[in-house]
């Protein structure tokens, strides 16, 4: 083997080899990358700033995409009823969607992994209690949970804080709806690792449970969980879109893809199809690519390869 | 005519880093009614040999050279469909883990009946009677009741007896037993080995007994082949190979087994370990670890050469 550096070893590994040979993996990761870059760098890349009210001109409203008759090249995908550029709106909107989804999944991972580790290692009554809570929550669709949490937290907050904290409320709601799946997976892996001899070796020299959980067990259970997290990212994006579509998500001043779709929905049958179709296609493409990538990742990291 | 003839068999595993030769031109034969032991350490290729003969090589592994002849006819180039009637009818198999060999959802009687009816023309009642007969032959008490029991209702040793019955019930000429007693307790091992030997003698079945346990071979086999790094190091009558080995590896192997008869201060050890398939040395595969190595050993690969009662692949055998 020629590679000696860490990067070199990684590039030479079976994982990278399989990636290069899988059209699905390559295409979907390119799509995800393009969308992610376009949205993260939206303030610099987008042709217009659709939320700067001063730059909007009602004369630009309801222009069709540039490749259709009547279109304007400076608005490649057309404009909405307020004169906002649809392409820029998509880029900024995806930014918000991704931000919400990533933070929600991160929150979910922290809660889920902690519960899973504790439950799997402690066993007994603690395990039983935590798993019953998990079971109860899993009987409800996650969208419903998100709706419920969103509504309750909103009602609990004083009016003047509601607008500022909406972003965090949504992140919290979606995060809460996803943790049980992570907890379950981590619990299963923890129970397997707990019985292994290397854990016993650590216990023989007297290491405490906390240290064993964090330094020994956690690195070995992260694998499957990260794959599920990738798949759930798509779900989180869709959840946020659904909530925004229903009108209980983010406000129109910070529109996400879901909001854009909702706004555009009103114009769908009056002929201005582009306002809702393009955000919808972007959403679908992004979630599909993330799901395909997650599926491929799960198969590629399958222990049968070892 | 030998029952089984393996001639210069080559098994390869094509992979992204090149092709690995797991079996490198091995040749041996099994006579009717004979027990051939195939012994070697992990990675030597003994299980692969059994798998190749019975046509159960896991892809991407494939037979890349040589031939396998069963009763004079080639069986290494057959398709899966052509191989199926041979497997079971003419070659039976016993694997290490009885739990995974037996279908947990089907009663043992039904599994026996199914196997027999696939290969022999028997009516349902005839097959059932024979199934009970087989269970009795392998020493399952109350066979006529136990015939309806499920595998998990048997203990480990009993399960392996059922597996032996399953392997023999279609009356094959050859049985390949891959580590049949490794998963069992030592007192049960003795029972199972005795059973296998008696039954196969009774029915005139040949056995290819694959194991890492030299003790089992010493008691059960007529001849033994010692494998190392995908090649046969030595082959011959068991008494001669065990007591008067020609090949340094065989001699080292026998010396490293702790014996009940006497205690030694230090066990004979062979330094180093078996080479990985990716880095087999030039010439004789054993040369880096050999105490009798000469120049030729690092250049030319030795073929099996007759030496007294055994054949060994060595340029500098013990005299």
């Amino acid at each position, binding site marked *: 083997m020629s590679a000696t550096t860490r990067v070199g070893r990684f590039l030479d590994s079976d994982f990278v080899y399989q990636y290069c040979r899988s059209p699905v993996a390559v295409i979907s990761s390119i799509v995800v990358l393009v969308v992610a870059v376009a949205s993260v760098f939206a303030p610099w890349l987008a042709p217009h700033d659709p939320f700067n009210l001063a730059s909007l001109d009602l004369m630009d409203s309801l222009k069709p995409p540039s490749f259709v008759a009547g279109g304007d090249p400076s608005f490649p995908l057309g404009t909405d009823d307020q004169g906002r550029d649809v392409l820029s709106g998509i880029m900024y909107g995806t930014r918000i969607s991704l931000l919400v989804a990533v933070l929600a999944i991160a929150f979910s991972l922290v809660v889920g992994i902690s519960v899973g580790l504790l439950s799997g290692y402690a066993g007994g009554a603690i395990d039983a209690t935590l798993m019953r809570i998990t079971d109860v929550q899993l009987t409800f669709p996650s969208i419903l949970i998100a709706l419920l949490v969103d509504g309750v937290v909103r009602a609990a907050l004083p009016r003047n804080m509601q607008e500022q904290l909406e972003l965090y409320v949504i992140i919290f709601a979606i995060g809460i709806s996803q943790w049980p799946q992570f907890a379950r997976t981590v619990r299963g892996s923890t129970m397997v690792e707990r019985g*292994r*001899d*290397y854990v*016993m*070796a*650590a*216990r*023989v*020299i*007297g*290491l405490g449970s906390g240290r064993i959980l964090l330094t*020994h067990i956690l*690195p*070995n259970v992260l694998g499957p969980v990260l794959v599920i997290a990738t798949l759930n990212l798509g779900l989180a994006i869709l959840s946020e879109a659904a909530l925004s579509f229903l009108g209980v998500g983010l406000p129109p001043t910070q529109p996400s893809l879901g909001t854009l779709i909702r706004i555009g929905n009103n114009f769908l049958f009056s002929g201005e199809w582009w306002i809702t179709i393009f955000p919808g296609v972007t959403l679908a493409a992004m979630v599909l690519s993330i799901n395909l990538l997650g599926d491929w990742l799960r198969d590629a990291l399958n222990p049968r390869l*070892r | 005519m030998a029952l089984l003839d393996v001639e210069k068999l080559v098994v390869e595993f094509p992979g992204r880093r090149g092709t690995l030769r797991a079996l490198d031109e091995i040749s041996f034969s099994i006579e009717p009614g004979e027990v051939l032991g195939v012994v070697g*350490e*992990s990675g030597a290729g003994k299980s692969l040999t059994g798998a190749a003969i019975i046509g159960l090589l896991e892809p991407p592994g494939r037979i890349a050279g040589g031939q396998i002849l069963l009763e004079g006819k080639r069986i290494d180039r057959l398709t899966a469909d052509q191989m199926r009637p041979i497997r079971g009818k003419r070659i039976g198999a016993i694997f290490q883990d009885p739990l995974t060999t037996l279908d947990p959802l089907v009663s043992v009687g039904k599994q026996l009946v199914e196997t027999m009816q696939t290969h022999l023309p028997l009516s349902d009642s005839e097959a059932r009677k024979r199934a009970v007969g087989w269970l009795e032959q392998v020493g399952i008490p109350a066979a006529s009741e136990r015939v309806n029991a499920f595998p998990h209702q048997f*203990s*480990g*040793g*009993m399960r392996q007896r059922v597996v032996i019955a399953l392997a023999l019930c279609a009356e094959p000429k050859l049985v390949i037993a891959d580590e049949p007693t490794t998963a069992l*307790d*030592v*007192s*049960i*091992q*003795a*029972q199972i*080995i*005795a059973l296998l030997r008696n039954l196969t003698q009774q029915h005139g079945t040949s056995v290819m007994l694959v194991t*890492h*346990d*030299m*003790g*089992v071979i*010493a*008691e059960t086999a007529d001849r033994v082949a010692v494998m190392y790094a995908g090649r046969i190091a030595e082959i011959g009558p068991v*008494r001669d190979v*065990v*007591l008067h080995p020609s090949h340094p590896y065989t001699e*080292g*192997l*026998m010396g*490293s*087994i*702790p*014996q*009940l*008869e006497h*205690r*030694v201060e*230090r*066990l*004979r*050890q*062979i*330094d180093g*370990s078996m080479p990985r398939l990716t880095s087999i040395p030039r010439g004789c595969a054993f040369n880096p670890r050999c105490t009798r190595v000469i120049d030729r050993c690092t250049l030319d690969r030795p073929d099996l050469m007759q030496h007294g009662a055994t054949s060994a692949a060595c340029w500098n055998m013990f005299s």
Partner: protein
Amino acid sequence: MSSVLQAIEVSRHFDVSRPVLQRLLAGEKKRTLRAVDEVSFDIPRATTLSLVGESGCGKSTIARLAVGLYTPSSGEIRFEGHPLSSARAQPGLRRKMNMIFQDPYASLNPRWRVRDIVAEPIRAFGILSGQKAIADRVGELLSQVGLSPADGEKFPHEFSGGQRQRISIARALSSEPEFLVCDEPTSALDVSVQAQILNLMRDLQVKFGLTYLFISHNLAVVRHMSDRLGVMYLGRIVEQGPGEEIFRTPRHPYTRLLLDAIPDVAMVGRTRTPVSGEVPSPIAPPPGCTFHPRCPLANDRCRAEKPTQTKAGDVMVACHAVEEGRA
């Protein structure tokens, strides 16, 4: 203190009853698994006591009891004179004991580098501090077990079974212990690798004055390694004493069965006499002497009454037939 580890009438039970609700509905009683049943032994310093037996005999449970991973249900274990639980509470005493496991593939954390694995006890007990000091010590330990210091950079999966077992031994030695529990350390290894590991363990014992509790199912390996021997059956020690004495003159019928069941590698023409029956389930052991269903010498007393330890020469045997002079 010449005795490093002492077990005094140690028992360990496990509750293996079915879940409460199912049990009540089916009207079942609680089920107890008596994994270890009133076991006593004594290990003098710098010697090896081997415990040998087949599956279900309780030897693995004793291994875990000896290092304090389990606590006894009754009886007492003493380490260098102190009760084991208080010995384990003091880091100074706790570091004197360590364990080597059977499965070389599961006993090393696959995500850790070898140098961190070997250094873990050093760090846990604060024996050395500073990167360089620890790295040097790890290199020294790896050399002692026949590996190279450069192997510390690698991961466990890059090594063979025998090499991993050497890493396990290096890890066990890094806390500078005096007592090692070896739970079937060579059972998963090939015969020639086993020879290397057993020789290594003997050398280390001589060099460092180590005391071993050696668990195995292989009598030939045990003969090679041990000074004293205990034969276990269904949680009890049925024969115990100096190794050579027991091998020369086995008294308990089960010991004889075990010796007879070993294959005759030396081909001296010793025929095996396969004995019928299998080890019964430890959950529902036979009454009286648990070996009686398989024993050629069983009489009515054996079927009803549990035997106590009788002295026969230097050996303690739990057998009515021996006691009555019938064996």
